[in-house]
Every structure is written in structure tokens, then in C-alpha cells.
């Protein structure tokens, strides 16, 4: 079975996409997060709306913050969300 990548979304990213998580075939270790977002945005209006303004997106690979130009490597979970607003 091909490796999978779990995608998880929070706040308005989740609202625009319409789901909090989904699983896709792993795009490969060399694929960057930004490249994957381009591919997902091309496939659905919700993803396109969520990923429209990259400056407002943050990411985590396997629960560690990373820049959007990071390669996905062998990570199993990619989270996409707006800048955090806790505290």
C-alpha cells in the first residue's frame, strides 16, 4: 500500500475547506508544502480559497512548525492553519 499523508486544518482554513482532516497519497519526500498546496488548490474551490493568501498560512510537519517552502520528507502529518492567536 502506498504511503499516506494526513492533512489537518484549523480555524478559517478548516472552515473554507469544509473538513478538519483528510488523507491523501503521500506526494513524495521532495515535494514542498507550497507545491502540495498548489496541487490541492487546483483540485477544489474550497482548497483554493483556503490557500489563496500564502502569507497568512502557517504549517507544521509531524507537529513541528516549519516554513511553507520545506520539503515534506517522510512526515506523516501536515497541518495548515493561520498564525496562532492563543494566550
Amino acid at each position: 500500500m502506498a504511503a499516506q499523508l494526513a492533512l489537518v486544518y484549523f480555524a478559517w482554513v478548516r472552515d473554507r475547506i469544509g473538513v478538519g482532516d483528510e488523507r491523501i497519497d503521500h506526494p513524495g519526500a521532495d515535494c514542498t508544502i507550497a507545491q502540495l498546496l498548489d496541487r490541492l488548490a487546483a483540485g477544489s474551490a474550497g482548497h483554493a480559497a483556503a490557500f489563496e493568501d500564502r502569507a497568512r498560512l502557517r504549517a507544521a510537519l509531524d507537529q513541528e512548525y516549519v516554513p511553507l517552502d520545506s520539503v515534506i520528507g517522510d512526515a506523516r502529518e501536515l497541518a495548515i492553519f493561520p498564525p496562532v492567536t492563543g494566550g
Partner: protein
Amino acid sequence: MIRVAVQAEGFDPAVELAALEALGGGGIASFTGIVRADGGLSALHLDHYPAMTLAQMEKVAAQAAARWPLLGLTVIHRFGTLAVGERIVFVGTASESRIPALEACAFLIDWLKVAAPFWKREVRPDGSGDWVEAKAVDDGRAARWS
């Protein structure tokens, strides 16, 4: 003593402060964050990333413990729907004297704001409400510690 908690239920700052006072230091500092009634909102809803939140908070706590001579620190952050006036977050520090306690307390809340994966949504009386936008000033507050 390092106590870090992510929870839906409330907390009692008096209980948390008493536990820090019992450590025998000469200085205790604390910060409590409360839901404000900004722009007619009735509550805040706090979303978070369960698999990541506690680990990020523990990382910030460990940084504070490594940087200041603390006898103890407590960090509690709530999630879920919190009405105006409810407590959201608590940071408490205990040290031999005031300066490490005060500085570590400010460091902890400044870093929690930019490192802990929480997102606030305003809840108005009719149920509508927008996600709160992050503020550049918060990044600046955290960065001044590095």
C-alpha cells in the same frame, strides 16, 4: 516543579498560587488572561491542535526553566467556548526573588501567544463571529527575548 496543562475546565488561580508559594521561594509572579467583551462579543471559542499543543507549551516551559533560576512554574491554557469574564490562561512562576519570577512570567505568556497552537473565534450573541487575526506586535514581544 513544572506544571503544564491544556484543559476545557476552569482553574483557580488561588490554588495554583498556593502551590507555587509552598515551594519556599521569596517571589511569586503570575499572569491571568480573561475573555474581554470586545465589540459586543459574548464569548470566545478556542480551537487548538491537540496532538501539538501540550508539547509546544512544554517546550516554552522548559526554555523558561533553563533561562531563569525558578523553583517552579505553572502554565494552564483552556480551550472550548469561554464566556466573557472567564479565565483563558494562567502563568505562574516561583523564584528566590522577584526579578527571575517577573521576567520568566512575561517570557512565558509572550511565547505562549506565538508558539501554542490555539485559535480564537469571536462568538456574538446571535452565534456569528470571526476568527481573531494574529497581531504583529505579539511576534515582536516574543522576539525581544531572543
